[in-house]
């Protein structure tokens, strides 16, 4: 195939006298970690016919920084890769270090790690649900879900002392214990969610507005997500049972029976649209509550750190060498860290971080193609890249002149909802 045939701009020949296809860009200001995005669309009228992704705006050189710091400092840096998945990256990084340097983790610490990671999943999924509601133009639902989200933020603050960047993880364990006195309060938070979750799921799955805007829109098939190596709810919503907690159980997840959630459970079939992604995330909140309850009941008293003395820990880390991989199922899907440490080297010699959205980027292409401009904010949000991207986008024409602001794009999306309601 020649190069010219491959360019999508030439796939649709412009009709005589018309200027289609035309191009516009969305972005680049976008908050996700390594995935801040500019979308370069080729449009035919209202329909997306092609899309290119331009990224790297958030590239802070974190891996390079990590190679200049000792493993414990790097752990805190890893936590700050993403403020939404701060447990994710510290989890994956500690596991990679433990794998590389052969460090055992006390059983109690594994449970505490999982509790924090699952609380994070609840907060992340609720955050996502609010954003999706906002993109539809259903702001009541946004404010409602964010109000509910404060419950889990309180729980995280109660356990770790922080709302964001919990600072719970340490190589070879966790830094804070969950004492028996804390358990009833954790159950209170879970009861709160259990009581209200049915209502949230009901609104998201049965509300007519949500259904109209999400069903059969932004479809990615199972073949698409497998070949594009997508991960997490984005992949599961297309019917692919992929979940590190299930495929390759680790930490305390290995002691619990976790089934990956796919949309058949509710819908009876897999469509792979935005609605399916809502189903998967909504049911995962429920699953997380069960996992936390399981952890709290199974947890036995014991050590929480392999080496509590920092100086000794650093010395031991310096002495050891090896290479290892750590994986964790983040709210957005598999996150993987690779580390290599040369014995005697004080710093992490090599560090590679792969966040979940990195693998989900290409899955946007099949989702976006064939859909309308007004659906773009919702489709982009449906892969949960991070919430506020579409708030601050600007659409430009070829000359780079702004013709549509993010606000207007949002307005288009809201208008589509109104149109469908009539």
């Amino acid at each position, binding site marked *: 195939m020649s190069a010219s045939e491959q360019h999508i701009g030439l796939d649709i020949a412009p009709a005589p006298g018309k200027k289609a296809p035309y191009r516009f860009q969305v972005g680049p200001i976008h908050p996700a970690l390594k995935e801040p995005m500019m979308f370069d669309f080729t449009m035919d009228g209202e329909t997306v016919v092609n899309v290119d992704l331009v990224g790297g705006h958030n590239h802070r050189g974190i891996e390079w920084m990590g190679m200049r710091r000792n493993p414990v400092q790097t752990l805190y840096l890893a936590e700050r890769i993403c403020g939404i998945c701060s447990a994710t990256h510290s989890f994956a990084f500690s596991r990679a270090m433990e794998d590389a340097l052969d460090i055992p983790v006390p059983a109690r610490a594994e449970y505490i790690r999982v509790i924090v990671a699952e609380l994070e999943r609840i907060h992340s999924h609720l955050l996502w649900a609010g954003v999706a509601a906002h993109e539809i133009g259903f702001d009541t639902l946004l404010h409602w879900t964010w109000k509910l989200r404060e419950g889990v933020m309180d729980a995280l603050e109660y356990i770790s002392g922080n709302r964001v960047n919990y600072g719970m993880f340490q190589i070879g364990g966790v830094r804070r214990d969950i004492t028996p006195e804390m358990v009833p309060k954790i159950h209170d938070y879970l009861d709160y969610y259990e009581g209200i979750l049915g209502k949230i799921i009901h609104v998201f799955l049965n509300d007519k507005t949500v259904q109209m805007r999400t069903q059969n829109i932004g479809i990615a098939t199972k073949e698409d997500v497998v070949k594009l190596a997508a991960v997490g709810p984005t992949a599961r919503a297309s019917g692919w049972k992929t979940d590190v907690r299930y495929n390759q159980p680790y930490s305390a997840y290995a002691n619990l029976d976790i089934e990956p959630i796919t949309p058949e459970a509710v819908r009876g079939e897999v469509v792979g649209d935005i609605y399916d992604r809502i189903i998967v995330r909504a049911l995962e909140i429920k699953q997380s509550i069960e996992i936390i309850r399981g952890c709290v009941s199974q947890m036995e008293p014991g050590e929480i750190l392999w080496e509590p003395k920092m100086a000794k820990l650093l010395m031991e880390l310096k002495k050891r060498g090896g290479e290892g991989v750590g994986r964790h199922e983040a709210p957005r899907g598999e996150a993987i860290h690779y580390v290599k440490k040369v014995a005697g080297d004080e710093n992490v010699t090599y560090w590679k971080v792969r966040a979940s959205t990195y693998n989900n980027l290409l899955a946007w292409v099949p989702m976006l193609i064939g859909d309308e401009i007004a659906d773009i904010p919702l489709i982009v949000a449906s892969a949960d890249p991070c919430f*506020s991207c579409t708030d601050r986008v600007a659409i430009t024409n070829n000359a780079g002149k702004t013709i549509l602001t993010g606000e207007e794009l949002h307005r288009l999306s809201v208008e589509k909802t109104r149109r469908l309601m009539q």
Partner: protein
Amino acid sequence: MARLNKSFDKALWVFHVNSGSCNGCDIEIVAALTPRYDVERFGIKLVGSPRHADVMLITGPVTKKLSEKVKRVYDQMADPKAVIVVGTCGCTGGTFYESYTLDGPVDNVIPVDVYVPGCAARPEAIIQGVVKAWEKLEKLRGDSV
């Protein structure tokens, strides 16, 4: 700086820019807007265009790819305006204290009025920062009248 008009007495509209932050402060900004902290009751509102905004809330250590865009957003805001840096990494670099791809801290790129440290800054701290900017803008009005 231009004279403040009357509408300033009631409400501050803020525009949020992410200059390469980790999202931690960004979600806290949204948390400040939603029911628990509910700053909208004070008329503080997040707007979608810098041209409508009185205050810029900026997070992150300013990556090289975004520093020009941050300057452009700042220029698009109408005077009088205030800039609030939210988060330690925007104030001093914080945990990203050295890098080959950062142009920060924020005050190296655009003038800053209020610094809100914290990693991530709590919603209460962000609200306090906005109030500080408000005081500053009020004072400016006193000076120019």
